[in-house]
Structure formats: structure tokens, C-alpha cells
């Protein structure tokens, strides 16, 4: 149990770095409170696993520090840091029984047999593994195996943080829900700091209180799921979170007014003058409504997902996606749309203008 502070972390897998692209991580600073549930969200290759391995001590950062409870642990190895990590695919010791797998981290730390037995029993019950304790671990299904690797992390009472590196990748969809709610339940029960790495927004948003969104080795936004959805600070967040993602439309700034496709747009944030190389409007498909007047659009395609309709439209300024209830009547041909001002944001060079 610990609070975790990352100070100006940068990491590169190369020995010499010439430009930004040579860095896997660039100047990352995060404060994670004790016993919180956090998620690191981002596409493949954004540096989230690198960051996780730096926190766990499997990797030493090129620059910067890692602090557990204000104590610098940058140079310590995973054992000295007392962390647990669950990997993308289940890592189990094939030749051991389920019991021995769960007992392994405790045996290595020299606990007595009695202590080990009671600890393993407790964790096995929590994870519903009691009936399989005597079986060989390699005979279990993928989700059973992943429960074992989870159990090996939970069985130690002293862990500072439990980290998950896309732990549900190999699990069947219907079991993903079960395991995910299990994780959430466990977090409430044992109250430890948990960090969850994933590229799946649903997993991140359902698991975590705070989500850190990463893009090209940088943190683009940290916030609650609602904040990320309603007020993306970077066009990447808008685009990456939500399905379909945010509409990012080119716009012009003239005399403090925002012009898009020849129309004046009113937005939540305001801008006086633009020094940016490009300015854009961000509006989620959920917050666009059909109306009698506004921006003239042509309906191109309507796809019905059952609960929603996704409408592809085109206007002079670009393509706009609209999401509406399945029951909504969709006008055909040409019509007009309006943007909900509260959720319309202006971005300068991809960052929100505050």
C-alpha cells in the first residue's frame, strides 16, 4: 500500500536519442494516491507497458525518478519494491499444482508452512479456486490460469501496488465481464493501489477511478471517465475514447469568432486570436442534433447498431458523424445540424484552448 509518484520520467530503448521519436516515454509526471484504482489507456506502442515496467522495477528509466510513499525506489528491483504484476497472457508454473503456484511467492520469501497454508486458502476462496487447488495448474482454462497469476500477486499482504498489463487479452469475451467485475470487487475488498494498463477503453473506464491517457510517449490527459468523455483535453483523447470518436473539424478563427464551413459556431471555450498552425472544433457525435437551421449537411449513410444509429454526413467543412437513438427519425437527403454548445470545444494544435 503506497502512494506512487513519478517525477519527470523519460525512457529510451536507444543509447543515443536524436529526436522525440527516439523516446518511448517523454517527461511523465504522475501522482497516484494510495489504494486508488488507476488505468493507463492508449493504443499499442504508446509507451504504457514501458511505463508500467518502470513502475514495477523491471526497467530502469533513462531519466527521472519513481517514488513510493516519497521514498526514491528508482534503483530498486521488483522484489525490493514489493510489487505484484499480472501479465498479458497467464504466467503460471506449469509443473506445479494450483496450490504450489499460489504459495510460490510466499515460499521464496521464507514464510512458515502454516502461514502459507492459511494465506493461500484465503486467496483461493476469494478467487473461487478452492476446488482446483490440488490440480496441476497447466490443466486449467485461460481464465483460471489468469486467476492464478492474479492470486500470486494478491497472496502477499505486503505489496505496494498491483499492476495489470492488459490482463484480459486472452480471456473469452463472456468471461471478461466476470473477471473485470471480480477485479473491481477485489479492489474494494483489499484496498490496494492498482494500476491497469489497457488499450480497451471499456476496460479502462469501468475499472478505474482515474484514467491516464497516453499518446506517443506522453500523457495527454488524466481524469475520471466522465471528464475524458465530456471534455477531452487533446484531440487524441476525443478521437480514442468514445465509439465513434469525437468529430474533429477544421475551423477558422476571425475576430474571436469561430467559423466552420461558413457558419459561426458557438463553443464552450473561447478564443481571441489564433497563434496556432491549425485550429479545430471537437464535438462528440452524441451532442449533435438535427434541426431546421444550422449547418447544412448531406446524409451519406445510416448504420443501425441496435441501440443507436450512426449517421455519416458531409458538409462543406468536412465529414461529420452523428449518433442518435435508434428510435429517432432520420431525415433523408439534405438537412441541418446544430452543435450542443456545452460540449463543443476549440483545439489549437490538438490541445484544448483553456
Amino acid at each position: 500500500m503506497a502512494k506512487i509518484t513519478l517525477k519527470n520520467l523519460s525512457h529510451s530503448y536507444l543509447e543515443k536519442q536524436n529526436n522525440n521519436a527516439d523516446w518511448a516515454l517523454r517527461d511523465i509526471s504522475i501522482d497516484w494516491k494510495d489504494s486508488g484504482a488507476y488505468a493507463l489507456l492508449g493504443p499499442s506502442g504508446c509507451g504504457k507497458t514501458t511505463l508500467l515496467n518502470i513502475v514495477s522495477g523491471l526497467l530502469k528509466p533513462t531519466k527521472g525518478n519513481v517514488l513510493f510513499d516519497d521514498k526514491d525506489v528508482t534503483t530498486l528491483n521488483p522484489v525490493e519494491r514489493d510489487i505484484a504484476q499480472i501479465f498479458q497472457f497467464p504466467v503460471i508454473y506449469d509443473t506445479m499444482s494450483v496450490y504450489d503456484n499460489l504459495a510460490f511467492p510466499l515460499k521464496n520469501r521464507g514464510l512458515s508452512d502454516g502461514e502459507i497454508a492459511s494465506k493461500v486458502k484465503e486467496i483461493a476462496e476469494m478467487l473461487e479456486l478452492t476446488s482446483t487447488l490440488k490440480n496441476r495448474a497447466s490443466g486449467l482454462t485461460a481464465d483460471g490460469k489468469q486467476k492464478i497469476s492474479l492470486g500470486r500477486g494478491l497472496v502477499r499482504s505486503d505489496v505496494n501496488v498491483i499492476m495489470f498489463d492488459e490482463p484480459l487479452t486472452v480471456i473469452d469475451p463472456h468471461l471478461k465481464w466476470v473477471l473485470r467485475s471480480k477485479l473491481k470487487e477485489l479492489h474494494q475488498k483489499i484496498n490496494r493501489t492498482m494500476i491497469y494498463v489497457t488499450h480497451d477503453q471499456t476496460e479502462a473506464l469501468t475499472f478505474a477511478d482515474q484514467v491516464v491517457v497516453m499518446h506517443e510517449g506522453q500523457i495527454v490527459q488524466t481524469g475520471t471517465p466522465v471528464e475524458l468523455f465530456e471534455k477531452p483535453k487533446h484531440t487524441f483523447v476525443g478521437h480514442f475514447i468514445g465509439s465513434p470518436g469525437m468529430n474533429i473539424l477544421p475551423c477558422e478563427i476571425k475576430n474571436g469568432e469561430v467559423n466552420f464551413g461558413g457558419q459561426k459556431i458557438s463553443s464552450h471555450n473561447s478564443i481571441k486570436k489564433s497563434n496556432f498552425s491549425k485550429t479545430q472544433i471537437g464535438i462528440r457525435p452524441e451532442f449533435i442534433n438535427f434541426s431546421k437551421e444550422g449547418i447544412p449537411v448531406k446524409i451519406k449513410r445510416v448504420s443501425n447498431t441496435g441501440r443507436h444509429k450512426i449517421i455519416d454526413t458531409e458538409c462543406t467543412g468536412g465529414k461529420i458523424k452523428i449518433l442518435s437513438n435508434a428510435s429517432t427519425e432520420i431525415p433523408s437527403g439534405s438537412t441541418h445540424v446544430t452543435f450542443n454548445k456545452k460540449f463543443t470545444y476549440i483545439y489549437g494544435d490538438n490541445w484544448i484552448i483553456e
Partner: protein
Amino acid sequence: MNKTINQKAWLFVIPVFVLVAFNAAIPLMTVVNYSFQETFGNNVFAWEGTRWFKQILLSERFHAALGRQIAFTFIILLIQIPLGIGIALTMPKKGWGVPVCLILMSMPLLIPWNVVGAMWNIFALPDIGFLGYTLNAIGFDYNFTQQPGDAWFTTILMDVWHWTSLVVLLSYAGLNSIQPAYYQAAEIDGASRWATFRYIELPKMKKVLTLAILLRFMDSFMIYTEPFVLTGGGPGNTTAFLSIDLVKMALGQFDLGPAAAMSLIYFFIVLLVCWVFYNLMMKNEAQS
């Protein structure tokens, strides 16, 4: 789905049948033929029944050769398997060292058997060979052409030199296929180096090691050329392993009947051991 019946498909199998017949079935049946009969040349045969088999199975000479063979195979497996795993564990995993090590390791495997025998023969000669001369110079009374112990020592050393690489290469391939997450998990679980080897590396290498043991068993059990060139089976018969003894009987004494019977017994021993070994390994596999 209905299967289409087309007997013409058998035509495609004929080439394989012919090939197998000529390179395996017919030669083997010739041996079977000889093993039940006495021949006086000129295609004159007399039926002998199981006489040659009884003779071989009861002969002390065969028992001695079999004993030597088992001892030799057992000793080289005991040395080569742990040594091979050990070397594979210390080999670099990346960088320029990888190709260098791989090439160095493959070299002995590329040398023809009789060349290996000749090389070691010269290398070990007590008067002019580097190994033999050095051993004598530092005070050992070493002479592999006259002392059985020295002959065994040299033969085993030669086989270890020639074939440990095979175990190394197989183990190295097995080790390299282990995902880094296993090592990371072991590190986090606080496993010692030994525990990591025992519970991760060894189980993950099981398949390649099964293969390595099987290959080394078969090869060493049928070894002929190298000891033939090195010691010729001597001094006396002390390094006459099964193949060497068999050739002596068949070509030296021209006892074709007993030699054929011995070949078949020899063949069945190899087959039986491989079958038992393979099944034991696969039984374990099925359990897990």
C-alpha cells in the same frame, strides 16, 4: 459432406511404396531371410529356425558388447545433457556473441564421422598427439591404444566433443522460445536463479530435451565410425560396441546368419527403448 470415392488416388501412392520398398522393406526382409537360414553361398540356403537368435541371445560375446554399449550410451548422456543445458544457459541472448557462439557450436556437427575419428586418433597419440603427449608430459601414464581405461576416456571425450553441440543448440532454441514475461514474473515472485531454472526453464525445455535425449540415445547406441577409426574396438574388445562387434561378425567372420539375427535383436532394442521413452514422456504430457 459426402466423400468422393476414387480408387485412382492409389496411383499417387505407388511412388512412395516403391521408394520405401527399396530403401527399407526389401533390405530389412533380406536380413530377416538370413536370420532364419544358413547360407553356403551360390544362393544355397538351409532352414535353421530360431537357432541363430538363441545362439546370439545366449552368447557371452553379445552380452559383453551390449553391456559396453549400454555403459557408453549411459555415460555420454549423463555428460552431454547437463553440459549441453549448462552451455546453452550461459550463451548470450543478443548481440554479436549470438552468431559467433552458434557457428562455434555448429562446427563439430559439420565434421564427418570418420574425420572426427581420425582427428582424435592423431590428437590422442601418446608420442606425437597434442593430447596424448601433454598428458604424458604432465605425469599421466596415458596410452589409449593399449590401456582400456584410456581408450574409454578418449572415446567418451571424442563423443562429448562431437555431439554436445547438438544438445546445446536444441536447448538454446528451447530457452529462446520462453516469453520474457515468465522471467519477469519469477523476478517479481522473488524466485532464486535455481528456482527459475527448475520451474520455468526446465519445464519449458522439456520437449526439446526429449528430442535431444532420443537423438543422442539412438546415435550413440548405433555408434560405429568414430570408435572404429579411433580404436578399432580395442585394445582387445574393450571398446567394441554393438555395431563394431556386428561388423566383425558379418564381414570379418562372414557369419551371416548370426549377424542377421544380431542385427534384428539390435534393431528391436533401439526400437523398444525409443518407444518406451517416448511414451513415458507423452504420458506426462497428457497428464498436464
